[in-house]
């Protein structure tokens, strides 16, 4: 049987209440996992002899504020974990809906040390805290930056396009350097 089905069956057998949904897109399977059980599922995926998802490619997240306001989803954020099994050459994605960014999923640092840094990136840009990860600090942005830019309610921060009618106004507000 193909590997997508195998992984879904094994995870469903080991953690009956963990899988909330299954999505397939172009041959890649995404399992929507309950936030409380993500670490146990990840450990199972890594350690099980048939599955062996030993490489974590990426931890990224989405802010679904437009879908939340329209009523398409229940939770505002979703954290995506991308796994790769090197021995079986198979990729898998786990998606964890997160309601409250201050109570995010548990950290996977104990399983993969690099997860500490991937979660640091998610915190830096979206503000999702991971339980157990104490070292959440600014990675890409300057240390004293306020706010999380990739959230949908963060302003774009652009300067208006300069035409001849608004050049004076833009020029007056621009902080030119003194020598």
């Amino acid at each position, binding site marked *: 049987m193909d590997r997508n089905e195998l992984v879904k069956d094994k995870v469903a057998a080991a953690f009956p209440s963990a899988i909330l949904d299954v999505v397939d897109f172009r041959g890649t399977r995404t399992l929507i996992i309950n936030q409380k059980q993500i670490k146990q599922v990840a450990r199972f995926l890594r350690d099980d002899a048939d599955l062996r998802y030993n490489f974590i490619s990426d931890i990224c997240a989405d802010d679904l504020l437009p879908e939340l306001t329209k009523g398409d989803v229940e939770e505002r954020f979703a954290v995506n974990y991308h796994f790769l099994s090197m021995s079986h050459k198979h990729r898998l994605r786990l998606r964890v809906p997160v309601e409250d960014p201050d109570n995010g999923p548990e950290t996977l640092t104990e399983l993969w040390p690099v997860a500490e840094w991937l979660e640091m990136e998610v915190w830096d840009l979206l503000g999702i805290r991971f339980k157990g990860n104490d070292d959440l600090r600014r990675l890409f*942005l300057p240390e004293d930056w306020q706010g999380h830019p990739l959230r949908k309610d*963060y302003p774009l*921060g*652009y*300067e208006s396009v300069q035409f001849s009618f608004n050049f004076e106004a833009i020029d007056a507000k621009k902080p*030119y*350097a003194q020598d």
Partner: protein
Amino acid sequence: MGIEQKLGNMGVVTHRLEDLVNWGRTNAMWPMLFGLACCAIEMMDMQASTHDGSRFGMELMRPSPRQADLMIVAGRVSRKMAPVLRRLYDQMPDPKWVIAMGDCASCGGVFNNYAIVQGVDEIVPVDVYVAGCPPRPEALIDGIMTLHEKIRGEKLTDWQ
């Protein structure tokens, strides 16, 4: 005329101090390596053998700000890099000039957002802006020539 006639063939030339000092400044201007992004490739191309930068006196590009007098800001400056840029500019000894190379250094370029400084003249005072994304090496040379003309026109009273 004047003093040359009296001195004959003694090998003395008279000239204005302003012109002499300005000539010295323009013909031995060492750029500081400040290539941040894609414009850096074109800056390297300007310095390399095809569009030789050495024929304008820019024989070396010094990475140390203490030994350079021209800062070519080549590439986009992020908000995180801005204090570093200012510190390096402050470390350059007088006289110093700044060329904002490319669209990102002049006005933010295509990156009109929270992370990129919209024009490096928010941080350092710029003498010449070179447009282009990236500007061709010839365009950068044109900018340098414009800077040279600007310096040649400097008067005694302008010097710090």
